[in-house]
């Protein structure tokens, strides 16, 4: 029995370790390719014989490269939408959890039901709207569909229900306004939930592709994924540059992931358990 168990555990380790090699290999290969030059990229050697940083210089520092601008665009979009989502989603979660008023249930159901509307359908009217309002090739045009997230409302409502009502009533008796109760008392109390929501939203908006691809037609307004797709499509066989671009697009997320891994893992686990 003991021996059987130990064999089983060893086998589990072997399988999991092998699998983790499969999972990281593409990243490893991307990174190695990014240190090769045009001639080495076509050699079959795994490691670069003369590792070079020229690709990074070309993509990050060269005056003709648009990557820095795309990087900036992605950062602006991800930061602004995340800030908006944090405020509005927690406000919605708070209102739907702590207030009672006619129509509360219907409003909640209506908001949640928007999760089922496929983006593929919405982008067509969004595009028409952007054309009519001249939002094409603007930050607002890229950002407006993501300013509030229905999924976040669902998440925040769960967390808001843990706030004791006495605390809110005490603040009201002290004469605090409703909005300042929300900003000064409620929001600080749900910081862990806000952290999870923030990180997910940031990742989602940083990686978003379909809508930014449609709304941004001028290269200076591309986000990093759209820019990378465009750049790679035109780069032909310059795989060393494509791999460098891919590394640059991933780097901030991997850094973020290493810092906030706890929140990310918890956030993923929560989506499943609450579902």
């Amino acid at each position: 029995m003991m021996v059987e168990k130990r064999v089983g555990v060893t086998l589990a380790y072997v399988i999991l370790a092998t699998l983790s090699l499969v999972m990281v290999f593409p990243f490893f290969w991307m990174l190695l390719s990014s240190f090769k030059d045009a001639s080495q990229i076509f050699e079959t050697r795994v490691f670069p014989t003369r590792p070079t940083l020229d690709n990074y210089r070309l993509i990050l520092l060269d005056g003709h490269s648009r990557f820095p601008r795309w990087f900036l665009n992605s950062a602006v979009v991800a930061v602004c939408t995340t800030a908006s989502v944090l405020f509005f989603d927690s406000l919605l979660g708070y209102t739907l959890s702590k207030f009672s008023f006619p129509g509360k249930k219907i409003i909640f159901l209506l908001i949640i039901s928007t999760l089922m509307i496929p983006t593929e359908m919405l982008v067509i009217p969004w595009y028409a709207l952007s054309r009519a309002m001249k939002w094409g090739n603007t930050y607002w045009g890229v950002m407006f569909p993501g300013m509030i997230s229905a999924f976040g409302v669902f998440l925040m409502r769960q967390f808001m229900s843990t706030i004791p009502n006495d605390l809110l009533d005490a603040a009201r008796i002290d004469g605090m306004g409703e909005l300042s109760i929300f900003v000064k008392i409620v929001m600080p109390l749900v910081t862990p939930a806000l952290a999870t929501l923030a990180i997910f939203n940031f990742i989602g908006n940083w990686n978003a592709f379909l809508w930014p691809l449609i709304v941004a037609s001028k290269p200076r307004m591309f986000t990093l994924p759209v820019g990378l797709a465009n750049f790679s499509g035109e780069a032909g066989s310059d795989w060393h540059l494509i791999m460098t671009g891919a590394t640059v697009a991933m780097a901030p997320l991997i850094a973020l992931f290493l810092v906030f891994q706890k929140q990310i893992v918890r956030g993923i686990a929560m989506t499943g358990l609450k579902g």
Partner: protein
Amino acid sequence: MTLAKKRAMTAYLFLAVPLVFFIGVRFGPMLYAMLRSLTDWSLLRKTNQFIGLSNFKAVLGDPVFLKALANTLKYAIVGAPIVIALSLGIALLLNRIARARGFFRLIYILPYITPIVAVSWVWRWMYQTPPLGILNAIFSALGLPAMEFLLSPNQALYSIVAVNIWVELGYCTTVFLAGIQTIPMDCIEAARIDGASSRQILFGIVLPLLMPITLFLMIMQGIQFLRIFTPVYNMSAQAMGGPLDSTKSAALYIYQEAFTKFELGRASAASLVLFAIIMAVTLAQLKLFDKKANGEVES
């Protein structure tokens, strides 16, 4: 004004901006797309006439759209069950080990949080034919024949499915592992004392208790694969969904109708067809699992 009324007023005030958003950016556009799917809406024509169901007739009579729908179902039918089965297996293995569990989970999640555009190009690079592609180099080192991967109409779709599985695996594993850890240990201990084998515990206790999570993941992954766009766009030549439309998904077809042909009415009709399919598949899964769950209770 009574206190309750005043509180309700505050609530409506807080809800005002978000409600405008959900109506203006979600429901409104959805209704608009539905209405305009009945017109010859195009950016190339000035007039917009009501043409009934002509757009639906046109897309459903378009062999390319039918091919895209068939591909879309293939993506989902192949991809979703494999992701679920693999991730469940991995989660069970992770639950058995004591050390390095967090480390492994971290590595498995990595593809999920990275931009799909970037990983699509990394895989496209790895899928290259000899002598460029590393996968073919590994194959030839192992004495296996060279593969065409993305260049072959028979292999391209599966090559893309493999990438999407690799992306979604960590997410599903994490959800399953969290679910396994909520199973009360005394439940399993009691069964063990009663003489249940590991196998019986797995099939008799663990898997039935994971049923709701499995259903949730099946539905989410089903939707995910039915809507597949970014990997197809980035892994097919010129983003065309080739070779020979063999990888074109419904989402890519909609994108091309709307934004390269500017036939917005026809694209809206196609998007409604996709919406209907997503709803039908989701409901079918709910029903199927419901029956299974009830069947287990009865037996």
